[in-house]
């Protein structure tokens, strides 16, 4: 049974004084239980809108979305999200940030603390439990954000370019850590990125989106065995996937740079 299912989802923004934008056009997508699913696309293709839609932070113009067979409404703790910008609550320590969700659920204090300690261990932040976010590096902040989203034990974890602001070494380390955590906890993940390497390295499946209007252009299964280490990045199958995705994305970028061009056929 597929866990997250989007059928014919369309989002049209109609700002005043500006032409309407078709952000998402008839997007259909299924993400199976416990699958790590990645959406890759050029900037402005509506991939963030898609994620915010699933999170309940935006509303679709038409179409239908379901999680475990129930229609998706407003935001809720069963769809955790990690943002690209740093969204830790600066007035809470690392531990308190992670306990934010469990405390809202009114879980007993000892249980909240157990959840937090367990996750601090999982994202290797021992020794920083009582630090404030301002004392942490960018990579550490995003690890706390990941732990905080997982503390609610959500049914699906939504990640909106969470490592986009990090330098490339930190990003690589974060990707490996994320896979570690994911392998031990087995969550359904929907991950957004514009970085093709990141998409292939992380994903069980990669959905390539086209630029405006945003559509799922092609979905690929990534058959690279897990656990995946850094050596995967230079393997021949990785390069093959990369070529395929690059050519799909290249076509769009070239296409989208010609706004005056007559209506073009989309694949």
């Amino acid at each position, binding site marked *: 049974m597929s866990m997250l299912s989007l059928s014919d989802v369309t989002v049209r923004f109609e700002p005043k004084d500006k032409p309407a934008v078709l952000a998402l056009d008839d997007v259909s997508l299924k993400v199976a239980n416990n699958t790590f699913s990645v959406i890759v696309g050029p900037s402005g293709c509506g991939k963030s809108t898609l994620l*915010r839609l699933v*999170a*309940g*932070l935006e509303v679709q113009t038409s179409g239908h979305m379901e999680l475990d067979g129930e229609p998706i409404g*407003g*935001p*809720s*703790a069963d*769809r*955790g*999200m990690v*943002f690209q*910008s740093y*969204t830790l*609550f*600066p*007035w*809470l320590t690392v531990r308190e940030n992670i306990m*934010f*969700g469990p405390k*809202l*659920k009114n879980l007993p204090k000892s249980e909240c603390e157990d959840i937090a300690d367990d996750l601090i261990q999982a994202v290797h932040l021992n020794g920083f439990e009582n630090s*404030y*976010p*301002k004392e942490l590096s960018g990579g550490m902040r995003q690890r706390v954000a990941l732990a*905080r*989203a997982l503390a*609610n034990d959500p049914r699906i974890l*939504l990640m909106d370019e969470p490592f986009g602001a990090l330098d490339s070494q930190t990003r690589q380390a974060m990707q490996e850590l994320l896979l570690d955590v994911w392998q031990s906890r087995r969550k359904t993940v929907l991950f957004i990125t514009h970085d093709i390497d990141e998409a292939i390295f992380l994903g069980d499946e990669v959905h390539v989106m086209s630029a405006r209007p945003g559509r799922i252009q092609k979905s690929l299964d990534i058959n690279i065995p897990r656990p995946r280490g850094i050596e995967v990045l230079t393997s021949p199958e990785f390069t093959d996937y990369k070529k395929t995705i690059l050519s799909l994305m290249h076509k769009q970028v070239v296409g989208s740079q010609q706004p005056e061009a007559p209506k073009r056929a989309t694949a």
Partner: protein
Amino acid sequence: MWTRSLFSPKTEIARPVFISLSLASVAVVLCLWCLLTYGGITPKDFLAAPHEVILAGVKRVANMSLLEHMWASLVVILSGFILASIFAVPLGILMGSFRAVQAIIEPITGFMRYIPVSALIPLLILWIGIGIEQKIMVIFLGTFFQQLILISDVSARVSKDLIDCAYTLGADRRKVVTRVLVPACMPGVMDNLRVTMGWAWTYLVVAELVAADTGLGYMILNAMRGLFTDVILLGVFTIGILGLITDFFFKWARRRLLPWSADF
């Protein structure tokens, strides 16, 4: 070359250099004052000499009159300021984040912020007399509308992502306000309270220049009638020092209460 750092923008300088420069600037003003008075450049009843101000201070501390004036002024300024803050902080936070509250309050604040509070004093005297309530009201009106606008700006700047994030963690709208919006506003609120406290001191003198029989503003005005420039200067210095103390208090409180916020 250590002199390089003096002339490069946004470059740290050694602490001793910083302190010497600060002391030098105070010393220059003091020397100038001494030169003008002891040098006989200004007439005696135009500008009092430093020792005369000190003597005036010693005398008025000894007979308690300076402390009485200080106390009277502090009661007025603190009552007006605290009263204004109690209303302006919550209203400002709501105004910056709820369009409906903004729509209701903005026309009034937008108008009131341009009215100098001194223009309202005649009305206030007519309505509530010349007692302490009138002076408190002057401070209240002078600070409240400014605080409201500044704090609403702080609230409007709270990152939308922070709010969205709280929703995805399971917070409802009420919890988003109490657990995210309000704490996120606190550093900005503290900074603006500190700034408006400085303005409140200005309004205090305005309030006490008109119809008062006690307070530092009254002391200054009364001294003018007898050309006692030593007492005028004493009043000015007292206000300056009290202002500095409140400023230090706000800085200390911010560091103490909001240790998590970025240094400033």
